């Protein structure tokens, strides 16, 4: 231990990124996308995978490279329930076994490749990654999203973006209240985190910002004024966040569910997805709800771009220097670590319940002042123009 000298220069520390990928369910996007009868290439967990749906309707995930001579199965053809390699037509089943070699009398022993467990739920395809090779335990689930299959909600609006940094950056957002003001132009007024088991939650309430025109005008076009929002967002495992997000407008509430999820491509990049569904209501008939979902989806994408721009230029930091109005970054990373160790090594401290509520008094004062200054400046500019 070195003594903490108040005037010593604080060093930024960062260890090499672990070569291990998180254990857990990872969403590969809309299930529909993989049901076109063609094989899909998915680069994930540092490998090339092939995703294909057989004639039986089952969607399967296999290692992308054929065990015969290394052909790329994702360039092959779906034949019946199997994927046929483009090189010599060996047929691989969803269970990872070679079912048939058309030009051979029999399939050799050991003709088995890696297969990932899959799950389709709420119109989304999930794949289970586990470096120890175990099956997904029953208690590690992704909750069902009620609105996703109901008629009074819109369909998913889904986006995918490749991000060139380690996925820990996106996880850190769970506890990062202040960046929502500075990067995303939101105005948090309440912020709390709860970590327990494999779930990490962020509870946030905010008011709309009068210095952000889109918000003041309720999304543009003279609609009703947006007052604020309430959000309960939980990561269920290392990569899939469900955000129950309600926007409060003058006279009504708009309920939506936002998905923020990713899968690692390799140590230094990940595929970042967003999904949104919006509930219909008297104030928001189906068509208006569709339009709102579209608008929110664009808004989320803008938010991702704002994060990505920061990530592109920032450095990885294992020892962030925190003030008392910051969230529990260290405790979040302690929770996140459970997905990168063997099941036998998951320590109680990684999963024990932890609650952290930020005192937002000072942030709110300071942000309110900043908003007012922005408005005054704009008014002065408007007057002189």
């Amino acid at each position, binding site marked *: 231990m070195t003594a903490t000298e108040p005037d010593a220069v604080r060093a930024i520390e960062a260890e090499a990124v672990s070569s291990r990928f998180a254990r857990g369910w990872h969403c590969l996007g809309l299930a529909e996308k993989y049901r076109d009868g063609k094989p899909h290439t998915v680069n994930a967990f540092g490998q090339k995978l092939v995703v294909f749906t057989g004639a039986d309707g089952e969607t399967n995930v296999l290692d992308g490279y054929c065990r015969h001579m290394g052909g790329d199965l994702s360039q092959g053809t779906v034949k019946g329930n199997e994927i046929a390699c483009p090189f010599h037509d060996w047929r691989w089943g969803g269970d990872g076994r070679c079912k048939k070699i058309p030009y051979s009398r029999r399939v050799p022993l050991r003709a088995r490749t890696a297969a990932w467990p899959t799950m389709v739920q709420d119109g989304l395809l999930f794949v289970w990654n586990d470096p120890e090779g175990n099956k997904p335990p029953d208690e590690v689930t992704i909750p069902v999203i009620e609105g996703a299959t109901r008629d009074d909600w819109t369909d998913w609006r889904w986006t995918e973006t490749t991000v060139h940094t380690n996925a820990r950056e996106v996880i850190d957002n769970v506890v990062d209240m202040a960046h929502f003001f500075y990067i995303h132009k939101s105005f948090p007024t309440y912020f709390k985190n709860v970590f327990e088991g494999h779930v990490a939650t962020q509870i946030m309430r905010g008011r709309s910002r009068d210095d952000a025109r889109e918000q003041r005008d309720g999304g543009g076009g003279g609609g009703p004024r947006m007052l604020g929002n309430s959000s309960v967002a939980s990561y269920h495992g290392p990569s899939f966040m469900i955000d129950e997000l309600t926007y409060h407008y003058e006279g009504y509430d708009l309920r939506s569910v936002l998905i923020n999820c990713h899968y690692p491509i390799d140590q230094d990049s990940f595929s970042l997805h967003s999904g949104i569904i919006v509930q219909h209501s008297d104030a928001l008939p189906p068509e208006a709800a569709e339009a709102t979902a579209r608008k929110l989806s664009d808004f989320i994408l803008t938010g991702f771009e704002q994060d990505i721009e920061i990530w592109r230029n920032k450095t990885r930091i*294992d020892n962030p220097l925190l003030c*008392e109005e910051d969230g529990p970054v260290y405790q979040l990373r302690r929770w996140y670590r459970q997905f990168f160790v063997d099941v036998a090594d998951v320590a109680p401290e990684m999963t024990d319940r932890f609650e952290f509520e*930020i005192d937002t008094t000072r942030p709110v004062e300071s942000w309110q002042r900043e908003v007012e200054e922005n408005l005054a400046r704009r008014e002065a500019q408007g007057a002189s123009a």
Partner: protein
Amino acid sequence: MTVRQDDRLLDGPLLPVRCRRCDAEVLVRKASWEQTSIQWNAAARAACTGLSGDPHATCPALRSAIQEAALTGAIAVME
């Protein structure tokens, strides 16, 4: 992976607070009257009866025990 500690704990540690309803003992830190950190362990979590509704809420009985500990000075409020 080195396990790192939140430096803020050097300025004020987590201290035990006992709930008077269920007798669960948790670790608590308050950086101000409005800020609260609560570290549970398995025994305390199993004992608590006040978390059955909203799983993201703080147990009301524990919340008042913490409030009282702050008022009596059993835990320091750092501001």
